[in-house]
């Protein structure tokens, strides 16, 4: 039973990191309807800046600069690339982000080289022990951060005009412009926010239990795909629930893999996708996503 509790807790804590990554996806999708494949490189950029700077200016300032830096990179992608596209097809823009990702990841991995960069976080490898179950303090921090950020965004989307402007712009650029929405600003803002979120997520991806930032850190962004989808691509709540679902599924599938050998070993990565498929069969727009309209 404690094993189960420990795996569950571990899943929740892992899931909170995924939720943060998924939130970044969701923000961009909400504002622009683009599936952002460059999110991985934003992660890497944010983590890199934090990791490089923490020795000189201390952890918290470095994190702040990291968030700002990634936000800047996000904004730059929007300003230099996304904005230049004159067509309307969102899948085309998704392909553009693949190109951007290749560029950025190549540059960042070149800079990171073979290093494993520590980010100098204050939590170290300290753990919290609850009964017989332990959880890393970093993960508690991640859980709190994810909870706070997602709640904050939920409120912002619901109660400020920014959220309305974002959704309006995503649905119809022309009509949104007619409402006085400054399209450039909205998508620039979304990309910047997604960048900042990626930097926060990168922090939690590179602290204890993982040794630090290195070139393949960005691959974790892949896990956020099923998270974002099964929650519903345009839902902040969905990002949280999706992230946690993926985290828990992965943790349980890994922890009990010895009991599941008939399915082959190493189910941890596959299981979230299977859960996602099942959920999509029942709810084609994810758990919290906006349902497709069906009227003429």
């Amino acid at each position, binding site marked *: 039973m404690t094993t189960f509790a420990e795996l569950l807790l571990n899943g929740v804590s892992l899931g909170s990191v995924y939720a943060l990554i998924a939130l970044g996806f969701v923000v961009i999708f909400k504002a622009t309807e683009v599936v952002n494949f460059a999110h991985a490189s934003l992660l890497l950029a944010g983590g890199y800046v934090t990791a490089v700077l923490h020795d000189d200016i201390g952890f918290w300032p470095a994190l702040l600069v990291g968030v700002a830096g990634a936000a800047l990179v996000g904004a730059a992608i929007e300003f230099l690339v996304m904005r230049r596209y004159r067509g309307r097809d969102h899948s085309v823009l998704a392909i553009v982000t693949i190109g951007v990702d290749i560029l950025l990841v190549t540059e960042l991995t070149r800079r990171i080289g073979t290093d494993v960069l520590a980010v100098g976080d204050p939590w170290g490898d300290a753990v919290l022990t609850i009964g017989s179950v332990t959880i890393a303090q970093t993960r508690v921090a991640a859980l709190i951060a994810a909870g706070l950020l997602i709640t904050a965004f939920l409120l912002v989307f619901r109660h400020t*005009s920014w959220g*309305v*402007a974002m*959704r*309006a712009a995503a*649905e*119809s*650029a*022309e*009509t*949104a*412009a*007619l*409402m*006085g*929405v*400054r*399209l450039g600003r909205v998508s620039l803002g979304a990309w910047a926010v997604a960048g900042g979120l990626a930097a926060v997520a990168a922090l939690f991806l590179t602290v204890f239990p993982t040794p630090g930032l290195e070139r393949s850190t960005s691959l974790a962004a892949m896990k956020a795909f099923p998270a974002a989808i099964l929650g519903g691509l345009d839902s902040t709540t969905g990002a949280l629930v999706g992230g946690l679902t993926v985290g828990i599924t992965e943790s349980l599938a890994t922890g009990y893999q010895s009991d599941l050998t008939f399915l082959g070993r190493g189910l941890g990565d596959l299981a979230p996708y299977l859960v996602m498929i099942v959920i999509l069969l029942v709810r084609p727009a994810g758990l919290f996503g*906006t349902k497709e*309209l069906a*009227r003429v």
Partner: protein
Amino acid sequence: MGGAALAVRDLVAGYGPVSALRDVSIDVPEGSVVTVLGGNGAGKSTLLRAISRTLSFHGGAVTGGTMTLGGRPFDGRRADRAVAAGVSQVPEGRQVFARMTVEDNLRAGALGASGPRTAKAAALRRVHELFPVLAERSRQQAGLLSGGEQQMLAVGRALMASPRLLLLDEPSLGLAPLMAARIGDTIREINGQGTSVLLVEQNAALALRLATHAYVLEVGEVTLAGPAAELAASDEVRRRYLGVVDETAADDASRATEARPVLSRWEDSR
């Protein structure tokens, strides 16, 4: 809030190689209602898009002419500037944000408005008064509304911005007669509060009743202009835009059928 006079001079606009407007000049005096009549493809929507700066979204562009709003040059390049200057448009074909709720659509309408919170609340109350169904359905996705309800939403949304110049592209499209009349009253009322209105409407009878001035646009050019009452009396306008009287309609219809090739039934030869 008060209205603003719009003066369009020698406007030339088109979509790539397609020219849609040629040297169009139109005046909307402060606090007036001006209507533009014209057949399909005459360029009415293009004119409104040119004013609200949304031509680029259709692959079109203004290539000549000048505009002034309230006496000041009005050649800003972006749609949001136009909105900030007090121009608000009901676009052709409703264009409600289908996946957003009715409530959020109305909030979106107020995005460009600079007024205080209370002004927005008041605008919302008025819209709800005007179209009670929008209050009833405030949590429904706009795309699920009926056609006419969507049209009401589109008009209500434009009113949320408390504009100085209101551009209406076929506001009565798909509205039941009763509701079309109510839109007419609303336009009159808004105008009464000082907003200038530029109205494009297929329901020419309604439009001419509301307007002080009218223009007839044909294939991109202004062919007739003058006080609305005068135009309403002209034969040309009566025949083409007001429709003939009912008795001849049936003849007309049958004459037309005789004139055109009759469609034979399809006999599947297999």
